[in-house]
């Protein structure tokens, strides 16, 4: 029974899902209750994870890990989801599409992400990935009257199932070669199977499946369409939580590659993915006119930066990725939050031109968006800068200086399209006249996200020390 103590964050989430089902069934005013109830659940789960951070233990017959960086991930997922829920309240009112399932699916997806972060067995990774993905497929198409949302849902579902197929095939090959699904066993015996081609191919296929979820280059096709078609708040969660969960799964399943010296046989693969994602994302984003598509390509580029950490294959890389993911979560939720506030009914005001003259109309929103864009571009003193800094340091320490240089070049390219938004907001007059509806909860959520962006930028060392203390 003692084991249940370590998985309290998971239990809180699961109980939250079931209770919110009952609320949605029996209360007619569930639209008012459910968002606040789910925020409460997220906060309870997130802070209980933070409270248990020192109790590192593997529970349930080597299935699930609790404590340490796992709980740090769970905290980030829950906080991100709470912010997204806060954004959704007014966004859903704007579209007149209240479905109670929205919040339930949001909670379930966070449960899936947390499982991926805590997985100690290949099957748990698969279960977590499926729980998360099924929620995302449904969430992408939750606004059924919108044709683009249906398209996004179907596209994501088809390509996502294909990627899951790769993942499961890879797991089958790994299981076939080592007769075990435990990641601990994989970690300890990696050098023994290092020359087994079946084993390596299995790991490669697992990596293909997860690369799809992190939206890295050759598996990025779905990203722009899905982010554009889905509700903006859902895109916010998909681009942050989904990506972070997949990265956490890569980190746990490739721990032997990332922490043991001279075993990183996947470095060329990671390096190639990183280079192509960064350059492709940054260059194509310049040509975009729709802001959600631009954010989608920026998301591909950021996946590339984080993959540098995997390519460098040392503990600096791992802690760098975790820091970057935390920073990216808050930056992107802030950015998508502002997009969801500016967005009008029926997909209007989504072009980049809509942001012209925003500084006159809504000075607070413009200021917040400017901070986020500076941070996304990687300019000091914000969180995005230190994320990139730690990643590049890790690359240099692993003697992959060329990768760091490509990263810096790509960041320089990306400055153009991030700063363009700021120039539009402050130095251009608005061409179209539209009213931006006030959203107090949305604004609150964006402000909290920006506060975290600034906090991670001011005190990056304390956070990175905490992460590397657990990364070992």
């Amino acid at each position, binding site marked *: 029974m003692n084991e249940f103590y370590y998985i309290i964050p998971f239990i809180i989430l699961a109980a939250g899902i*079931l209770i919110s*089902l*009952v609320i*949605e*069934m*029996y209360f007619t005013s569930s639209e008012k209750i459910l968002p606040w109830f789910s925020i409460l659940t997220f906060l309870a789960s997130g802070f209980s994870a933070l409270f248990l951070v020192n109790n590192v233990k593997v529970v349930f017959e080597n299935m699930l890990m609790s404590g340490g960086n796992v709980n740090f991930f769970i905290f980030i997922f829950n906080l991100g989801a709470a912010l997204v829920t806060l954004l959704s309240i007014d966004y859903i009112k704007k579209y007149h599409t209240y479905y109670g399932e929205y919040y339930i699916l949001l909670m379930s997806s966070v449960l899936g992400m947390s499982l991926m972060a805590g997985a100690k067995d290949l099957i748990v990774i698969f279960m977590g990935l499926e729980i998360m993905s099924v929620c995302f497929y449904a969430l992408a198409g939750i606004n059924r009257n919108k044709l683009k949302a249906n398209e996004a849902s179907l596209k994501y579902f088809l390509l996502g199932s294909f990627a899951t197929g790769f993942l499961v095939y890879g797991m089958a090959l790994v299981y076939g070669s080592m007769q075990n699904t435990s990641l601990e066993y994989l970690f300890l015996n990696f050098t023994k199977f290092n020359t087994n081609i079946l084993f390596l191919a299995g790991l490669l296929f697992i990596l293909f499946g997860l690369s799809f979820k992190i939206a890295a280059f050759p598996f990025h096709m779905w990203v722009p369409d899905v982010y554009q078609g889905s509700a903006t708040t859902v895109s916010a969660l998909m681009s942050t939580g989904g990506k972070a969960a997949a990265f956490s799964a890569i980190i746990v399943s490739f721990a032997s590659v990332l922490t043991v010296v001279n075993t990183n046989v996947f470095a060329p693969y990671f390096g190639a993915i990183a280079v192509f994602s960064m350059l492709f994302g940054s260059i194509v984003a310049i040509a975009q006119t729709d802001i959600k598509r631009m954010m989608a390509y920026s998301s591909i580029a950021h996946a590339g930066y984080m993959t540098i950490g995997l390519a460098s294959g040392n503990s600096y890389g791992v802690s760098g990725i975790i820091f970057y993911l935390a920073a990216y979560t808050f930056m992107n939720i802030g950015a998508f939050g502002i997009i969801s506030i500016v967005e009008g009914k029926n997909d209007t005001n989504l072009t980049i031109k809509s942001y012209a003259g925003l500084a006159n109309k809504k000075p607070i929103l413009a200021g917040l968006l400017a901070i986020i864009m500076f941070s996304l571009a990687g300019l000091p003193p914000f969180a995005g800068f230190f994320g990139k800094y730690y990643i590049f340091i890790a690359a240099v320490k692993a003697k992959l200086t060329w990768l760091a240089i490509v990263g810096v070049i790509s960041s320089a390219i990306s400055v153009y399209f991030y700063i363009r938004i700021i120039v539009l907001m402050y130095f251009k007059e608005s061409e179209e006249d539209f009213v931006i509806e006030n959203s107090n909860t949305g604004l609150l959520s964006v402000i909290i996200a920006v506060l975290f962006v600034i906090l991670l930028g001011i005190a990056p060392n304390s956070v990175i020390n905490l992460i590397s203390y657990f990364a070992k």
Partner: protein
Amino acid sequence: MIEQYIPVFIVIIVAVIFAVATVVMSKLMGPQRPNSEKESTYESGLKPIGTTNERVSIKYYLVAMLFIVFDLEVIFVYPWAVQFKKLYSQIGISIFFSMLVFLVVLELGFLYVYKKGGFKWD
């Protein structure tokens, strides 16, 4: 032991033979004198309107989907039920509750769909 499956094979073979024989034999042995009245869809009834490829309501999809989930749920009860006595003597009553949790989670889902009108037919 492959011999265990011999009855299954026999059933399959009998089923195939029966199905093929029924179709073929009635074609071969029955008298066939077709005329235009006999060939029409209803020999004595209303003339059919439109094609037979009518679109079926989306509700069937939901019912079929719910059926599959129920199917999967039942599948997981079998191994538990087969081993229940042994598990009960080893672990105790908690083995009952682990299945109960699984079932309650799923039945809550069905109850939810019911309350939301998923089974309403108009």
